[in-house]
């Protein structure tokens, strides 16, 4: 029995699943991280991912290209991000409550639009999702090929974006402007940076990533949309940002670690299944997220202006 449990780790299928499960989380975590680095907590992520999943899928269902679907999802995410930014940055409303409102709004809107477009029927309609890409040489490697290099394009995109965002934040003037706005917007303003514009930009860009994360589920991982498909992944992304200490490379690592637990739990249930109710296995990822928060809270170097609205003339 123990061998069977450990043996799961040796299957290429597990690791392929890890990358697949991690991909939407990478998009979502990067998106949330970008928002928070500029000082804005975006709790709309769960709803934005839901809407992104729906609208991306719907675009492809109507015959358009998969990449266009992904782009539409990003655009939709950006639109919700703009709403969130307007309410919290321009108007200075509570970031907590606004985010929750946007989650409820975007999620309900996604169901409404879906039901309008697709009448209720027996099983939900499907599309042809992204197919795994064959990389010359890499995909043919013995174990690693099947494990790591048999993924769809958006997965590789997620990894590439991690590197890109990491570089931008750490090495470019734009990244520095975002960081200083998140640490002390008054300091940013004193340097001639417009903290309002920076925050709005970061939130819009981050929300676009969130939308793409949702679309990954309907365009790559699965091939249909159903209303409760996000299942708390958005909240997991929020915890992963803390776990990653707001650093993109650690966000990637955190997403992979989480995905490992999730993928493992799925397969473990098949091995151990009769003895333990399947719900216990499904709980494991959520419990892990909470534990991750615990661990990370000790050493968290929070962006100091996170969640503080910036108002001019209030010095």
């Amino acid at each position, binding site marked *: 029995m123990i061998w069977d449990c450990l043996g799961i780790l040796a299957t290429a299928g597990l690791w392929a699943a890890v990358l697949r499960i991690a991909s939407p989380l990478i998009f979502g975590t990067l998106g949330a991280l970008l928002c928070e680095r500029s000082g804005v907590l975006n709790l709309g992520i769960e709803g934005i991912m839901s809407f992104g999943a729906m609208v991306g899928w719907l675009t492809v269902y109507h015959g358009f290209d998969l990449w266009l679907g992904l782009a539409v999802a990003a655009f939709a995410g950006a639109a919700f991000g703009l709403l969130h930014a307007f309410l919290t940055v321009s108007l200075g409303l509570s970031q907590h409550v606004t985010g929750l409102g946007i989650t409820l709004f975007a999620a309900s809107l996604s169901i409404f639009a879906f039901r309008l477009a697709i009448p209720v029927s027996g099983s939900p309609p499907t599309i042809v999702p992204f197919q795994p890409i064959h990389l010359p040489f890499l995909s043919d490697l013995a174990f690693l090929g099947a494990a790591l290099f048999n993924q769809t394009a958006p997965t590789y995109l997620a990894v590439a974006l991690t590197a890109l965002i990491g570089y931008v934040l750490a*090495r*470019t*003037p*734009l990244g*520095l*402007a975002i*960081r*200083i706005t998140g*640490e*002390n917007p*008054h*300091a*940013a*303003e*004193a*340097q*001639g*940076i*417009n903290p309002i514009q920076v925050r709005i930009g970061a939130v819009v860009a981050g929300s676009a990533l969130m939308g793409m994360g949702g679309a990954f589920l309907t365009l790559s991982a699965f091939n249909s949309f159903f209303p409760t498909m996000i299942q708390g992944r958005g909240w997991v992304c929020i915890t992963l940002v803390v776990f990653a200490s707001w650093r993109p490379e650690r966000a990637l690592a955190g997403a992979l670690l989480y995905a490992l637990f999730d993928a493992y739990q799925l397969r473990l249930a098949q091995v151990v299944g009769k003895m333990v109710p399947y719900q216990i296995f499904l709980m494991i990822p959520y419990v892990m997220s909470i534990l991750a928060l615990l661990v990370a809270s000790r050493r968290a*170097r929070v*962006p*100091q202006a996170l969640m503080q609205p910036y108002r*001019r*003339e209030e*010095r």
Partner: protein
Amino acid sequence: MTVVLRVEGITKRFGGLVANDDVTLDLHQGELLALLGENGAGKTTLMNILFGHVVPDTGRVVAFGQALPPGKPRAAIAAGIGMVHQHFALAANLTVLENITAGTQSLTRWRADASRARRKLTELAQRFGLIVALDARVGDLSVGERQRVEILKALYRDTRILILDEPTAVLTYQESQQFYAILRSMATKGLSLIFISHRLPEVMESSDRVIVLRGGRVVAERRPAETSRDELAELMVGRRVARPRRESQPSGPVLLDAEEIDAAPKRHMKLTAVSFHVRAGEILGIVGVSGNGQTALAQLLSGQCAPLAGRLTLFGAHCPRLWPRSCVASGIGRVPEDRNNGGAIGEMALWENAVLERVRERRFSIAGLVRKRPGLAFAAEIISRFDVRGGTPTSEIRLLSGGNMQKFIVGRSLATAPRLLVAAQPTRGLDEGAVAAIHEHILAARRAGIGILLISEDLDDILQLADRVQAIVAGRLSPDIPVTAADPRRLGLMMAGVWDGA
């Protein structure tokens, strides 16, 4: 002399308050101009308008002959204006280099050019004597070092007009002297400088010209050589405000005795082996530059942190530690150092703020239910006895001005005839009229036999009110000296850590 900066007809209102009223002034090339005025006179608002943090209602700013678009710090920076803020505009989690270079390069650049910045900063640091480690995290730096970063930020941007807002508030006397020497060397190297201060000795010594603001208006312009401290003081306040005089009186028994106490509240400088005592009818003044342990001392005596070592004796009995409620119950009145963040809850009514720390007393609650009428009466008593204007027992306390709020906070403690009063920075941020009122209440308490521990950064407070003085430096207390022996030189030395047995 050429005029490098001209401020014309600036007016700014915040709600009902007129912060700047038709202000016009000039700054000349290479000059050190002092902007003098008491708290609330409009100095900081004017400088914020100059730098673009605040948009004026009317008027304009002209720098080097070009009118500046209002409300844009970027335009001010481009025109050569730099500002050293009173509360440093720095991001603690970023490095010195990052703080200085943020916003200096185009946001579309793919690569931040650090090497050019490093070269320029090293050269500037040498030229002006502002050495600081470029890769250090700003949050780890001392206050003096952070100020150097603030100044380097401006110099890096090729500032030609430098604004400094209360630059010496956080420096000791010796450090201030060095500081003004640096400013003077900048002026000879081509900068023009404006500094805000309310410290008359410094203004008299270090400026070329003084402009006095009062109630938002320019009321006078003088050269230091042609005026006196007394004249400037009177111009600042507008009338001869006599602060109440302290008369000598015999002191009573020891109420509070602290022996070799250690305390370490989170995120503040800790106290090491501090000893002091307070007698009835006497004021013990603890003087020191901000950030030397005053907060820990205030928290210790308000019941917010516990002593880690040493012995505390209160009213003759050993007291292991104080709690906020136990302070109130045993007759210790407390005035916290920040009225907005510890003193009063803005959105609560005056009566609620009055009653909050003693709501479990029989007078104000019964069986868990709040008794509102005694609470309203208590608030009304405080309002009338302590001349609190602008509010009623039911109005929200945030509507009061700073001075009135402070009178209320002091009053709620004194109205219950405590035996001991712990007052931390009671006159911070107040205008002259409010300061005089607070002084009067404190002295009245002293006459009534209350023992008072006064913690203050303001030398005037200490010299005018205290009977005995101790200096607090890096969490340690000097031995006490009678105030008659506390001349500025001696105090300056004590505040720098120099005393017998140090």
